[in-house]
């Protein structure tokens, strides 16, 4: 077998997204959006069959469903996960979600509500959605398709929708123990919160990306993980699974210009 496999940046990010669920055990893996969903699906089909997953509506499946129109494929349901039950799962802490917030700050606080002033915002986005509850109850990872200071912001996010490791936001007696922010998968790198006092570290750099480029595009100071290296390339077997899960190549539209995984010199 050739060790020379070609892959896109989106495919590299799917593999990086799949890694976030390692060690989670039997939890509901909720990948919201094409790359997070492919990442969760890939994790379940490779190293983590114990993960629970839905059809991206309200039914559980043990075999992740391909994205988009399915042709002959018939989903095989294993249970129900309607929205009322999702909250039971969230509040019970049995979930790891990966979503793409509008803004993320150095504390891991996230914003999905508005950009700019709250009363008269520059841009109204969706609203806080489930971020306050998700962030205080279960594991979360994030996805950033276009790494920039507009997303990874200086100071605090404009509207703190999801909680983070910001001591100023927590009052005495509030339980922070269930908050667990894992990785941020961006188009440049993988970040984590494993520095001193949950400082953000660059965990791995995508092929051809330098630490300086990541720092220049980030609104807050970054640390280097001691073993900082290159983000793992997809294997031929992983790519085969990704292509099967995404027969309409929806992943090609997720990162601007659909660049290759290894930058042209």
């Amino acid at each position, binding site marked *: 077998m050739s060790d020379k496999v070609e892959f896109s940046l989106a495919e590299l990010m799917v593999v990086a997204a799949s890694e976030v669920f390692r060690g989670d055990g039997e939890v509901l893996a909720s990948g919201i959006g094409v790359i997070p969903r492919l990442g969760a699906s890939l994790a379940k089909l490779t190293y983590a069959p114990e993960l629970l997953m839905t059809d991206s*509506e309200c039914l559980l499946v043990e075999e992740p469903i391909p994205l988009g129109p399915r042709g002959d494929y018939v989903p095989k349901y294993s249970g129900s996960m309607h929205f009322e039950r999702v909250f039971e799962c969230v509040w019970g802490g049995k979930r790891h979600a990966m979503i793409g917030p509008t803004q993320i700050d150095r504390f891991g606080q996230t914003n999905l509500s508005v950009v700019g002033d709250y009363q008269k915002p520059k*841009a109204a986005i969706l609203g806080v959605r489930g971020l*306050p*509850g998700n962030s205080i109850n279960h594991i979360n990872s994030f996805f950033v398709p276009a790494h920039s200071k507009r997303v990874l912001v200086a100071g605090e996010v404009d509207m*703190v929708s999801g909680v983070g490791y910001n001591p100023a936001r927590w009052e005495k007696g509030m339980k922070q123990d269930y908050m667990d922010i894992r990785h941020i998968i961006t188009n440049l790198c993988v970040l984590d919160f494993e520095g001193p006092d949950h400082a953000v570290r660059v965990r791995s750099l995508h092929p051809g990306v330098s630490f300086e480029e990541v720092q220049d595009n980030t609104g807050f100071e970054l640390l280097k993980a001691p073993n900082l290296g290159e983000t793992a390339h997809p294997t031929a077997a992983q790519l085969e699974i990704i292509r099967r899960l995404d027969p309409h190549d929806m992943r090609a539209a997720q990162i601007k210009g659909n660049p290759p995984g290894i930058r042209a010199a």
Partner: protein
Amino acid sequence: MNKLMTAAEVVAQFRDGMTIGFGGWGPRRKPMAIVREILRSPVKDLTVVAYGGPEVGMLCAAGKVKKLIFGFATLDAIPLEPWYRKVREAGQIELMELDEGMWQWGLRAAGQRMPFLPTRCGLATDVTKLNPALKTIQSPYDDGEVLLAMPALKLDVALVHVNVADQLGNTLITGGDHYFDHLVARAADACYVSAERVEERFALTAEEARFNTFERYLVKGVVHAPCGAHPTTCAPDYGWDMSHLKRYVASASEENGWQNYMDEFVHGGEAAYQDKNGGIERMGKLPLPVF
């Protein structure tokens, strides 16, 4: 007992300043036929309580919303709700922005006639900072944990769209997800349902009866509204109407866009609305979205 009413008779009960809660979720199973009737009515200054979809945007566009109690507004396949966005960015409405979980928790408290229910959701975020009305409470037990006391979200009126109802007010939601309609119904002084099909009196099998999610004593009126969730989905009967939603989205960036939308689709009444959308034949066969 016969609770059958027209949408116009339902909306005639409404008063300015009322708090109205909506069933469904985003662009899914929204009571749009009744929403269109509200758009035709003079009622105003509403407090709208919703997991927002186009009902929120349309009521905002029509200037009927004084306050919004919500966790989000979206058309899903089109992520940003255009009229919510426009009105929100203009700073024209009061807001109580809540975590999705807090929203249903507040309705649950109202249905149980409790002043509040405790939760961790919302703590340490701007949700609590921006809503000074939200208070915390300390656990009276040894743990002493500080929790958010989510206040009851009491509704004057609940509006819910279901697949099937009978004239007594019994209802069936046959789609895969019943959302939080039962909590919306319980939180209200008066719940009105619209239904794709209305029967005189249910005579169900045990299997079918499992699709009933709240009791008829909560239901004050039943409106027969075929394709009454259009342009939102009504699983398993029909999917959302993407071409209509796109037309609606475009109205937010056109000159006199809302007036034109009202003239084209709303002012003429529900029968004309169906004609404008290819008739009930087309609307009832719109495919369910595949994710």
